[in-house]
């Protein structure tokens, strides 16, 4: 997942805090007499929100990266199978796969480690795929197939490629069923809950005699609800296959 509290991010957060403090003293403090407690709460919440958004963004980027590699993997395995079918040595057929794609760059790195740093092919393939569990599994299976005595290695690779496509298809179906539920929650949270809140606020509060401070209404409607919407959408995106 990488380090969340990086120097750059902490500086950005402190700029954000400075901005919140500035708004508080320039606008809110002079207009309505709100205690400093509100400011402290705002800083605590902004800390949680800022870093959780960043965490989601890291997850989304990681998911995008995995998706790109997963898209390339069936092509890679089939092309490798084609080369092996023509009795081209494994290392040479790996060299043929070097291109500008993400997987091509990984293979290039692995072969560089073999040629210049003294690693074995197996070690280098596992090392370059350390950040992606699925890729590491495929590389592990690949080296295992190459070390085995089977004659029709290309057929095994093709089966591996087919199973990969099938797995990806299953992941999409799983996400589809999950998405129906999340979409329902999203519509309820984004449309029905704010409407009910306003209804309760304007009509219900009169009957129940509960008083709401204007700042509470503003915070709930303008800050809290959009934040919940945003987090739900980020959750949907972060889990997309």
């Amino acid at each position, binding site marked *: 997942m990488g380090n969340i509290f990086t120097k750059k991010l902490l500086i950005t957060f402190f700029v954000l805090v400075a901005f919140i403090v500035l708004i508080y003293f320039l606008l809110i403090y002079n207009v309505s007499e709100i205690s400093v407690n509100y400011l402290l709460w705002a800083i605590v919440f902004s800390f949680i929100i800022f870093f959780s958004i960043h965490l989601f963004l890291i997850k989304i980027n990681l998911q995008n990266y995995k998706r790109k590699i997963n898209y390339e993997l069936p*092509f890679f395995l089939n092309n490798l199978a084609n080369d092996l079918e023509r009795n081209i040595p494994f290392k040479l057929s790996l060299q043929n796969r070097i291109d500008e794609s993400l997987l091509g760059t990984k293979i290039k790195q692995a072969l560089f480690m073999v040629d210049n740093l003294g690693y074995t092919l197996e070690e280098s393939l596992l090392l370059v795929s350390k950040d992606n569990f699925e890729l590491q599994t495929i590389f592990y299976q690949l080296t295992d197939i190459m070390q085995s005595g089977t004659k029709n290695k290309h057929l095994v690779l093709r089966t591996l490629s087919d199973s990969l496509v099938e797995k990806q*298809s299953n992941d999409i179906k799983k996400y589809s069923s999950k998405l129906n539920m999340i979409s329902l929650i999203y*519509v309820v949270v984004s449309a029905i809950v704010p409407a009910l809140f*306003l209804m309760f606020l*304007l009509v219900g509060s009169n*009957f129940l005699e509960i008083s709401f401070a204007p700042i509470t*209404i503003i915070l709930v409607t303008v800050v809290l609800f959009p934040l919940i919407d945003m987090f739900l959408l980020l959750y949907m*995106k972060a889990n997309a296959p």
Partner: protein
Amino acid sequence: MKRKMKKRGFMKNIFGVELSSLFILSLVVLNISLLILNIFIFNLDVLLFIGILMVLDMLLLFFKKLYINYSFSKQKKELEDGLVDELLRLTSLPKSNDLKLILAKLESSKNQIISKEFKEINLKIKKGHNPKDVFNLLKEKYNSDVLNRFLDLIILNTTTGTVSVSDYKNIASNFLKTKLLLDERNTLLLTQKYTIIIAGGILVPGILGVVISLVKKLGTSLSLEAIGISNSLSLYLISYWCSIIYIIEYVIISSFYISLIEQNSKKTVVYLSFLLPASFLIFFAGRFIV
């Protein structure tokens, strides 16, 4: 037919310049000349007009760029789809490493883009260009994964001769499999996209509009003070403005998310430009319903 085409071509281009570019250019010229004029006769109305024109210029430029991107991606998709058919056609070749034969087959493709591109390639090769360089140019132009693999295979085929017809078949079947996966994923994302558009454009503003209007009607038709309940006008006004701000925020978040789904952040402005007016229209229409 030819005459019609020529006429259409003339409508699209005047002296080699596209009509839309000419229109934007004339707006920019008008803008600059008004700005210069305004230095001498300082007028606030003219300044406002210049500002509106500037926004219009920028919007037009943005939409033109977006349209160019859209038409190019459509062209790329057409080429990729046609390429799969061509790959399957190539499997019927008796000799797979004859470049002339491959190019002739591709030239005669029923897909207009493939046919046009490979006609150009063939012409360049006949003029003495290196096939690898010409293929690289085509690769750079489209930046398509399938096309890159296909051209790599042809280059490998003609230089080493190790490619067999089954390789073309394999590429085609690989692409079809991955395309199926991508289509499945896109269908899923499309459902997500329309859920968000409907929620952002209709449901959220609609429900909020109706609720706000209902509360207002309740306040006027029922004399709440008479039954001992105070009807706070300030509370209503705060809720009213907060709902409007919430709708704006909601539409911005939705538009950004949809553009994130489509992996094109520039589209945020496009979705914003039609979701925002639509949601406001529905929000204010709420008062006519209740």
